[in-house]
């Protein structure tokens, strides 16, 4: 029995499925932190969550968070420390997965959150990296969450804040990044995953209510099908129950 769900609830549950049991994950705020909670309540009871302000949590916070530093995220944390300590784990190759968002992503998974148009001919100044560049460079797997619009999913970003596959193929390794890269891009319409020698993002799954043609029309490059292309599985009752246990007020419902 599949329950009714919102697009954001589907994105959260799709994100939760990317977290494996026992993993160390940079979860950040908004959708990913809820996804972390769902994963812990379903298939990944031993996953742990890191926050770049300097927090490690075994269990998600009990109350509403506006920022990762809010008091409910501090109380009963497993570790309160500094940014260097938690992000040093990342650079040391001890973080399995990291979630980031972005304003622009390209077909190789590079993300721009700094300068639309590039830093020399900036059209729009965005807030910048925060920890996103570090998380993209140094997580074993990068998970990106985006809204799926043609001006956001572009052929080539004007500025790489957070590296995905760079120019594709071996270029990420040649840049000195010994591990990592984009594992999945979870949008409000679909999931994209890299495929082929170049590691270009392909259409991996189509969310319920959307079509491959519509998704391709909303993508700024000629989006190809992943060989495993399939519909995104609908949330199970178990997954929805877990989500509702966390999102008691239905914040993600609408």
């Amino acid at each position, binding site marked *: 029995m599949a329950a009714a769900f919102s697009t954001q609830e589907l994105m959260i549950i799709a994100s939760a499925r990317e977290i494996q049991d026992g993993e160390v994950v940079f979860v950040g705020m908004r959708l990913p932190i809820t996804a972390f909670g769902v994963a812990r309540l379903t298939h990944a009871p031993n996953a742990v969550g890191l926050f770049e302000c300097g927090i490690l949590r075994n269990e998600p916070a009990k109350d509403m968070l506006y920022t990762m530093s809010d008091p409910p995220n501090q109380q009963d944390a497993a570790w309160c420390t500094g940014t260097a300590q938690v992000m040093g784990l990342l650079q040391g190759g001890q973080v399995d997965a990291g979630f980031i968002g972005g304003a622009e992503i390209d077909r190789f998974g590079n993300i721009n959150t700094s300068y639309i148009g590039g830093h020399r001919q900036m059209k729009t100044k965005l807030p910048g*990296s925060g920890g996103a560049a570090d998380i993209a460079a140094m997580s074993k797997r990068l998970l990106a969450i985006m809204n799926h619009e043609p001006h956001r999913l572009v052929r080539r970003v004007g500025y790489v804040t957070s590296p995905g596959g760079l120019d594709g193929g071996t270029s990420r390794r040649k840049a000195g990044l010994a591990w990592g890269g984009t594992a999945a891009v979870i949008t409000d319409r679909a999931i994209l995953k890299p495929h082929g020698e170049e590691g270009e993002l392909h259409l991996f799954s189509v969310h319920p209510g959307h079509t491959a043609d519509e998704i391709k029309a909303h993508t700024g490059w000629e989006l190809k099908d992943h060989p495993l292309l399939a519909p995104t599985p609908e949330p199970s009752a178990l997954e929805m129950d877990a989500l509702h246990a966390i999102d008691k007020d239905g914040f993600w419902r609408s």
Partner: protein
Amino acid sequence: MKSKLVSLKEAVRDVIKDGDRVVIGAGLEHAIPFAVTFELIRQGKRNLDLIAPISDASADMLIGAGCASSVTGAWVGNVSGGLGHNYRRAMEQSIPHPLKVNDFSNFSLAMALMAGAYGMPFVPVRSLLGSDITQSNPDHRLLQNPLSDESDPVVLVKPLLPDVAVFSVPRSDIFGNAHHWGSLGVTQEAGLAARKVILLADEIVDTSIISSDPNRVLFPGFKVVAVVHEPAGQYPSPLTGCWRRDNAFFNDYHQHSRQRDGYLSWLDEWVLSLPDHASLRAKLGGRLSDLRIKGQAFSAPANFASA
């Protein structure tokens, strides 16, 4: 030892100079000393270089007020709203004047402050590899690892040595010995790297309270030049054990600062028309006292007895 207790006005007037490289909070979204942000604006300080990984909306406010000529950081905006409108206006339209940005990521900024704290000539960072941050900030030097025979690029990041760092702390003595708890961001590194430290203490306590738990001290009292007793000096940001975050204040700022005029009237209402932080507390009234943390979830005691 001499007391370092001074008023907020005195601390900002006497310690922070035009053109200084300043850290106004190092906790990302936590314990940002907004009372100093507001007082810098009231005193019309100019040409500051704002060093911080994030510091929530503090940098955006200072940029809009014309206090900053550069930002050395990883992210400038408003955590509740996302974009920082004053930051965008300064970068895109030079309003109120042009702004230079020295791009970092959170980790590379933490390491740059660590290099400053521990006297390192530079610090090698791998997490900037592949990012155009090394292009837009030419201070970051992409080099071959001199210890490796194979291709092994690293980024050498220069140490950051702030002139002044300001922190909100739950409690301090009058000599600058203070306790910090909760997530720390880059507080320890910034405090050790800075030439001078100003503390905004939510509570002033006896030295014996601080020395009862020397592990909760992040940097020595001799780095501190001024202690300001300023309850809720971090308002509207949160302070573990003391204050919750006023999310509505940040949202309100985000809406008003969308246009320059709206920002200026916001600034008048919330900063310029108030002589000091006590007036802000009074204006907030029950809205502030609602944010006071009233529950108790105390740390298990640690015994330091010597016999």
